[in-house]
């Protein structure tokens, strides 16, 4: 359910006895120091093991006993997964254990992907950003989380290690609905590649949350490049309004090659509202969310256009 915070106990679930826990169930604990060890442990436990990275989504679910794994595989002691590296081509390679705070504070990120820096500022709070990891956020795949939207916007690709070697999956193919990804039980996300944005790209990021740091009711992220008076390349991604964060190709098509006037933007907004499929939840009806995402996309396009203009001249 978009916007619903899935790590919270659904108090009205059918399994009513699963309510009102605050201490985790018993489990074993392993702290491998290599990816090979980790994947081996995961395959050994055959779906009963869970990776723990920052623990900022997993531990609340354990405290509520929404999950009962037999063993936790703590990947924090695997060296080399916590770096942000220049890919030499204007993009970045980000290790799965890079904490949200590292992204927030990184000058490299701010220089290459200022929109990512801005997005990370909306993730939870300092203490949670100190622990939470990009790999964890992507694997957790909350429909209202920022990073799943951002890696799609930025045409990212995930490197995934499994017992039989590694594979690469485009961010746009990684998510498979709320809290679901294409990861197999024994697979680990190891790094995320973000290719360079087109030169002169402007960006806009707009989010509405009930309070600072809360999961968003809705958010939109847009990048644009300008060619003369026209929009050249446009990317539009949204979250909180669908069963997962998505790119909106229909809106991108409305923008590309068009003049950035109110008519174009209205058409793009209409395309976004058409593409999303929000649910009702405690904080907003589907109707309001659909309205809201249009407003946010409009404002993000506006900002992106102005920033692109700056880059262009």
């Amino acid at each position: 359910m978009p916007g619903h915070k899935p790590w919270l106990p659904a108090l009205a679930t059918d399994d009513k006895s699963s309510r009102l826990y605050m201490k985790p169930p018993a489990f074993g604990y392993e702290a491998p120091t290599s990816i090979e060890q980790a994947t081996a442990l995961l395959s050994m436990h055959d779906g009963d093991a869970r990776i723990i990275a920052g623990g900022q989504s997993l531990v609340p679910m354990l405290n509520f006993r929404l999950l009962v794994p037999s063993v936790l595989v703590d990947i924090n002691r695997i060296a080399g997964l916590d770096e942000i590296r220049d890919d030499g081509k204007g993009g970045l390679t980000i290790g799965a254990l890079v904490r949200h705070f590292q992204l927030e504070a990184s000058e490299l990120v701010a220089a290459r992907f200022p929109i990512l820096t801005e997005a990370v500022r909306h993730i939870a709070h300092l203490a949670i950003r100190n622990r939470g990891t990009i790999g964890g956020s992507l694997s957790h795949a909350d429909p209202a989380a920022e990073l799943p939207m951002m890696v799609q916007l930025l045409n990212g690709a995930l490197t995934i290690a499994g017992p039989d070697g590694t594979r690469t999956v485009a961010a746009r193919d990684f998510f498979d609905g709320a809290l679901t990804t294409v990861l197999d039980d024994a697979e680990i996300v190891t790094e995320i590649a973000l290719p360079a944005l087109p030169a002169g790209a402007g960006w806009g990021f707009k989010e509405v949350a009930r309070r600072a740091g809360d999961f968003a009711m809705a958010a939109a992220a847009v990048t644009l490049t300008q060619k003369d008076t026209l929009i050249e390349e446009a990317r539009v991604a949204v979250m909180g309004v669908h069963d997962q964060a998505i790119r909106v190709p229909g809106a991108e098509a409305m923008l590309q090659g068009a003049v950035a006037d109110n008519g174009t933007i209205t058409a793009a907004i209409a395309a976004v509202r058409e593409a999303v499929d929000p649910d009702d939840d405690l904080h907003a009806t589907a109707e309001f969310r659909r309205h809201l995402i249009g407003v946010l996309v409009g404002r993000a396009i506006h900002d992106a256009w102005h920033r692109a203009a700056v880059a262009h001249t």
Partner: protein
Amino acid sequence: MTESAIDMRPTMIGAPVQRKEDPRLLTGHGQYTADVQLPRMAHVAFVRSDRAHARILEIDTTEAKALRGVHGIYGAEDIASLVRPLCASSRTEGYHATLIPPLADSKVRYVGEPVVAVVATDRYVAEDARDMIHVDYEDLPVLTDPAAALVETDTLIHDEAGTNLIVERGFGRGDTDEAFHTAAHVVAGRYRMGRHAPMALETRACVGHWEHGKQSLTMWSATQAPGILRDALAELMDLPGKRIRCIAPDVGGGFGAKVSIYQEELAVAALARITGRPVKWVSDRLEDLTTTSQSFDDIVDLEMAIDADGVILGLRAQVLGDVGAYSIYPWTASLEPVQVISFMPGPYKVAAYRGRAQAVATNKPPMGPYRGVGRPVSTFAMERLIDKAAVAAGLTPEGIRRRNMVRPDEFPYKTPVGIQWDRAGFIECLDSVVEAVDPDSFRHQQVEARAEGRYLGLGFASYSELTGLGSRIAAAPGMPINTGTETARLRIDSTGAVVAAMAFANHGQGLETSMAQVIADELGVAMEAVMIDSGDSDPLAHTTGTYASRSAVLAGGAATLAARGLREKILKVAAELMEASPTDLEIFDSTVRLVGTDKQLTFREIAHAFYTQMGRLHPKQRAAMDLEETRMFDPVFGTASCATHAALVEVDPATGMVEVKRYWVAEDCGRLINPMIVDGQVHGGVIQGIGVALHEELIYDEDGQNLTASLADYLVPSAAEAPDVDVTHIETQLPDNLTGFRGMGEGGTIGAPGAIANAVADALRPFGADVNTLPITPQRIHDLVQAGSAQTLRPGRNNSSDDTTS
């Protein structure tokens, strides 16, 4: 020299002195209930009902009992012989008491009600065992809508009551029919305040320790009312009070939620006795949000008649309160809804008034007091309607308030419900806020902003409240306990230390500090020299606790009287020792001096002479003296406190987001003991009120399940949502008020919901929006804007659904 010594004596009352509590709390050395560790201690987890209304058929605990680490598992029958159910009785007509069992016996009445207690080595194991306990229920129809519960006759929450309408009361004065008949304008509205959680940051908790040798119980509880708890337990457990000691150690906030007696406290007391171990129960946050008393859930229908000049002629109020599954002890279910009708007229002169309140039981956790009790709701409704009346009469919001408020020369003023307002700065507070806000220039700014598509709004709320209630006015009508008196016992001990046993139960108000200030001034000692014992039922014969903005007035009064008495006694002993007349003596810095000489005796020397040095005083004289004074204080009625609040907000109609940009309060709580603490109480109260108005709401589905039982769904304001609050104090003094203090702990929360509602309504005026439901969430703003946009011309550019350019 002595003359100037007196001049130099710092007057503690009125000074922003730093708090005595702080060093321990800042270093992690406070001791909260959850911090209590005792040898052999076991932990309790409750199996709680997962249904809102059901008969208990069978409980199977066999599997759980066998789990390693489980000490015992107990249901209602196992503890029935040790502790009886609670009952909040009341003399009032139209009231039906309800029995509150320590553990649900034959049926459960709300989701979260404790059914079985598991006692185990630690909380983890206790929760493991809980997994293995199976309770069979037969579901009964669930009542969550108070309007439906009101007319329902087949399904009753309490069969013995014979109705779900457990309180019905009405009162008033004057001829309202006539008033409405002759009115130039009648304005009306239905106002709804959602269900709220006081949400102290420390969850409820208690530790019970039964000492077999002494056959006595010590209970530590995160409570505002250790005295009420002690008296209740003594009665329900058939023990003399002396064999039960209730201690409220450091308490992490209460706001009214910790001033009632809970099922878990009774159960833990019994478990301590059965198991013979110290047992600790610490509520987790989910339990807390599903079982701690809730509040404000009232629907108010309000009508006002005004004349052509905007003078209020008459007022009619009808209140429906959803009081949940039980009539809370000791306050009763009358507390909230009856308070709403009692205070509806506010600080205004209302010649003719009729109010009627109905309290309806539903399958939700019990309603209890929350900071402000009733008055946040009455102020919200009344202040919204006053703004409507202003429009009808063509007056400004500040103008209509000034026109109708009780004026300085009209005090004492008796309200239509019989409450008497003593002289208080009603109009002075309004004027002070108006001056700070400058509404005229704001209105220009507002027009300019609208032209840019920005929606600013300004809202006022004025209220008056009765605080520091004495014995003639019950904190809740007809309730079973006395809340109108307070005792303080002061002594000089054998080392010369000043020790005050006091009845308050501090939970953030800094009472250790402000009461030390009062005693220091009265006694002539340094504040640091005053040691206070509080939050403990033992040292005094009768105590209740801290609630209802009472402690400054009642504890302050008792401390003042006791300190004055003790001063006399000290002087008497010193006079004897110094062979002087008491009238020639003065006390400064724990030392008694003979004026005009350099003769002096420290308290320590006096104590030694009095207690230890046999022969210093003649036995006969000595027998006629003591260094201990116990005094009770009863303010008989109460003191009036009042305030005007103003909020300046910006609303984004496209997203429904509200930003509180500025906030002003001018309040009169009489003489300030510690302005720093008073400001802090106002800040905290206002931010809670903003939470009530904008963010917080407990939402139940039709099965009676709480959908907002985590802090990610029950949204209390964080620092980022909170504005700075600009506070001005008006200190109206009264000749016949012993100390000059008036209560103020609740005020912030009373004014803020109304002020915010009015400000949001003002901002959304172009959409014709009436803010009549709180919290006014983004969704509700969206709905108002959508409804408004459909009818009105869209004035700005931000409101339309294809807003693109902000």
